[in-house]
Structure formats: structure tokens, C-alpha cells
């Protein structure tokens, strides 16, 4: 990796959807090994930022880097370093969940033998081994969430990006995911989390960024952002909510 200190660097990022300015000169950095919560109301620009970071969206101005690599020019390097757990269930309907993970690993250059082993490890870790040969349609919503995580982790990315990973999960699954994310972060992985769950962000994260109407309105280490207030209070204060 070219720059080992800064995992994600976003400079002067601007994005329009037609006439709508979805991101307005966004600037922030996420350090290596950080657990970063990226918060904001619906439509604030969180998913747009994630999509630009991962290469799923184009942007109009600015620069995005992952460990020093430019996500547009050096996209092959940045994509190797990123794992995305998206909000929606978007799986190939023709494949079993084991095949799905093995192919996904293959796209990252992992040979079939190693990919199969890694897929089995992740399926076991997320209690999906019994469903190994099922297609994703046979899974419950919670299982699909876990499968999204398995897919994001299959190539052992340095930066894990999670777009509302526990939305719609029951308590047991939520705690399973939280424990695993904390473990990954302790192992040195950088976690970039968007969530509407303030408890989740406050419990897990070290750094917090809040975006509203396409602009960063508060960012910093958790203690500095909170200043003895609850995250919910800070969030409502800076986003103008009541």
C-alpha cells in the first residue's frame, strides 16, 4: 500500500444528480485502523459517498483516494483494498451461496481451492454452513445480511465499508455482527460504517462524521464530537432535526 496511515482520503468531492447537488465539496480522511461512523439523515449523501468511494458512482469534481491510490485512475488497486456490504440484496440468482462467494473471490484473483476454503470459513463464522448449497432466495432476510457480509469479506479487504449492516436484523444477529466488526477492527482492519442506529455508532466507532444535505457538518474523534452529550442529541443538533 502506498500510504499506510490514511485509509480513505476524500478531497473537495462534489456530485450532482441532474440539478441536485448531492455532495457539496466534501472533505475528510479516515485513518488506517479506524472505526469510522458516517452518519446523516436519509438523502444526506452517505450512500452516494460510499458508491463513489467504491467506484459504483461517478463524480463531478474532487479526488478520492484509498491508501494513496486514486479510485478513478488506480481503480484496480483501490478495489482490492475495499470490501462493500451494501444495503440491498443483490446476488446472482443462478448461483448457490457457496458458488457465489467462490466466484467473488475469483474476481479478486483468489484461486478456486483457496476461495472455497475461505468461503467455508466465512459461512461457518456467520452460521450459514447449512445453507451452503442453497440459492439466496432460500435464505431469510437476516441470512442474506450475513451473506452480504461474507461477500464483502471474501477477499480479506483492508477497508470494510458497511451501509447500514444491521438494519432489519434481530438482536441476536445485531450482536453477532457487532462482535465480528469489533474483532476485525481489533485485528487492524479499517471500518467505514453508515447507520441510522445511534447506539451502534456510539458503541462501536472511534471517529464520527456527520453529513447533512451533501455537506460535512461535524467530524472528529468520538469524544470530541460528543462532548458529554449523547450522539443522538449531537446528530439532531447538527442536522437541524428535532
Amino acid at each position, binding site marked *: 500500500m502506498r500510504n499506510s496511515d490514511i485509509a480513505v482520503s476524500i478531497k473537495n468531492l462534489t456530485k450532482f444528480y441532474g440539478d441536485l447537488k448531492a455532495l457539496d465539496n466534501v472533505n475528510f480522511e479516515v485513518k488506517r485502523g479506524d472505526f469510522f461512523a458516517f452518519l446523516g439523515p436519509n438523502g444526506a449523501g452517505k450512500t452516494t459517498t460510499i458508491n463513489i468511494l467504491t*467506484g459504483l458512482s461517478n463524480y463531478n469534481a474532487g479526488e478520492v483516494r484509498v491508501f494513496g491510490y486514486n479510485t478513478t485512475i488506480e481503480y484496480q488497486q483501490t478495489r482490492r483494498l475495499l470490501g462493500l456490504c451494501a444495503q440491498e440484496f443483490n*446476488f446472482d*440468482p443462478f448461483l448457490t451461496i457457496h458458488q457465489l462467494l467462490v466466484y467473488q473471490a475469483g*474476481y479478486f484473483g483468489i484461486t478456486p481451492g483457496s476461495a472455497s476454503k475461505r468461503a467455508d470459513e466465512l459461512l461457518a463464522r456467520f452460521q450459514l454452513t447449512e445453507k451452503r448449497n442453497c440459492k439466496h432466495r432460500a435464505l431469510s432476510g437476516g441470512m442474506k445480511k450475513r451473506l452480504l457480509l461474507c461477500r464483502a469479506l471474501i477477499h480479506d479487504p483492508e477497508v470494510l465499508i458497511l451501509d447500514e449492516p444491521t438494519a432489519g436484523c434481530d438482536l441476536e444477529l445485531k450482536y453477532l455482527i457487532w462482535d465480528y466488526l469489533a474483532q476485525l477492527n481489533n485485528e487492524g482492519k479499517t471500518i467505514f460504517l453508515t447507520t441510522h442506529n445511534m447506539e451502534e455508532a456510539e458503541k462501536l466507532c472511534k471517529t464520527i462524521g456527520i453529513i447533512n444535505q451533501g455537506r460535512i457538518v461535524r467530524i472528529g474523534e468520538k469524544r470530541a464530537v460528543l462532548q458529554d452529550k449523547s450522539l443522538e442529541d449531537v446528530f439532531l443538533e447538527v442536522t437541524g432535526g428535532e
Partner: protein
Amino acid sequence: MLITNPVGVLSLSKREILRFISLANQTVFPPIVSSTLFMYIFGVALGSRIDFGLSGITYLGFIVPGLMTMHLISSSYENTSSSLFIARWHNHIQEVLLSPLSYFEMVLGLLAGGVARGVVVLLGVYVSSLIFTPIPIAHPFILTYFILMIAMIFSCAGMLGALWAEDFGMLSVWNVYLIIPLVLLGGVFHPIDMLPEPVQVLSQFNPMFYLVQGIRFSVTGMIQTSLVSCILVALIMALFSFYMAVYLFKIGYKLRV
């Protein structure tokens, strides 16, 4: 444009190839069955009564290369267009877009499925023709060239169609209203000089005419135009369609918002 992630390309190619094999009743057998019926009805039952103005070849021998070309084209096109469009529709195209495959490699992986399906169907059509009459291949190396070029052209065209389409109805528009009519008018079932003179002139501007002629020459040794022009048309179309597919992936046309 080198391949830097061969395992990735092979994985995507394998997925594309196994996808159409697992759906062989939809993807492989129907064109073989329909061409066999065409050969029987038009080649065997009616063929002896058709005076099509060429000596040294039966009507069945004449239409087999045309049918091979037609199904090579439609199978290659349908494979990539349906695979990519379904991937866009379900949004599992993100699996590929998030990967470190280069845009060149993404197109190459998808292309493998289209080429493989086209070749499998073409071989099936040829083998089924042997039921009715032996048709030795006159120029196997030239045939290989045309098969690969044509499969490449229409696999890439399928990707362009899949990127352009907004719904399943639009997906078949190019194939139904443009490609198939041009192929049929390009001389699959008739020598071009059977047509009225103005139509013959127009046919010179139909690129499918050169592709059909290329395959027919490779199989029978007969040609109604210059072989060099057929080779060049196939090469230019293949390079252009491949370049366009890679370009659209690069700019993220209907893939990235």
C-alpha cells in the same frame, strides 16, 4: 490492455459459460432443433425442387453455412445481452464492478460466455446437418477465423444492447428488428444474385452479407464476393464492437450513476 488478473478473468468466464450450460434447454438445444427442421423442410423436402442458380452444390449444402452463421450470431448476442441485462436488473453486476478486474478484463470475461455459446450452437447445427448430407469443411482455418470474429462481434453487440436496454422488451429490439433481418437479407437462404438488381447493390452495404459469405466460403469453398473484403469487414467490426464495449464499461454507461 494486458490481462493482469487472469484468475479473475477465468472466474468470470467460467461463470458465464456454466450459466448457459446449466440452461441448455433454453440456450443450446432450441436453435439446433429449429435448424434441423429447417434443413429437413427446406433442404431435403423442398431443396431438390429449388433452382437457385448455383451448380456444384445442393440447396441443403448452400443453406447449412447460412444457418450456422445465423445461429452463431443470435446465440452470441443473446448470451451476453441476457446475462449482462439480468445482472443489471438484479444489480448483481456490482459483484463484477466492485472487483479489481480492469474494464478490458470484464468485457473479456463476459465475451467468453458469448463466444462459447455461439461456438457450441454452431457445432451443434453443423453436426445435425450431417444427418442429411456429409458437408466437409473446405477451409477449417478460415472457418475458425470467421467463427471467432463473428462470435466476438455479436457478443460485444449483446453487451451494448444490454447496456442500452431499460427493460426486457428493449433487450430484444436490436436482435429482432436489426440483426436478424440483416442476416436473413445477407444471403442465409438465397444467393444474392437471385435478388432484383437494386437489392443486390444494397446488399453490398449489408455487413452481414460478408459474414455469411465468409462462413459459406470456409465450409463450401464458394463465394460471391471477395474473401479479403469478408476478412476485413469481420476484423473491423470485431475490433470496433470490442472497443465500444470496453469504452462503455470504462465510462460506466448505465452501470454507474
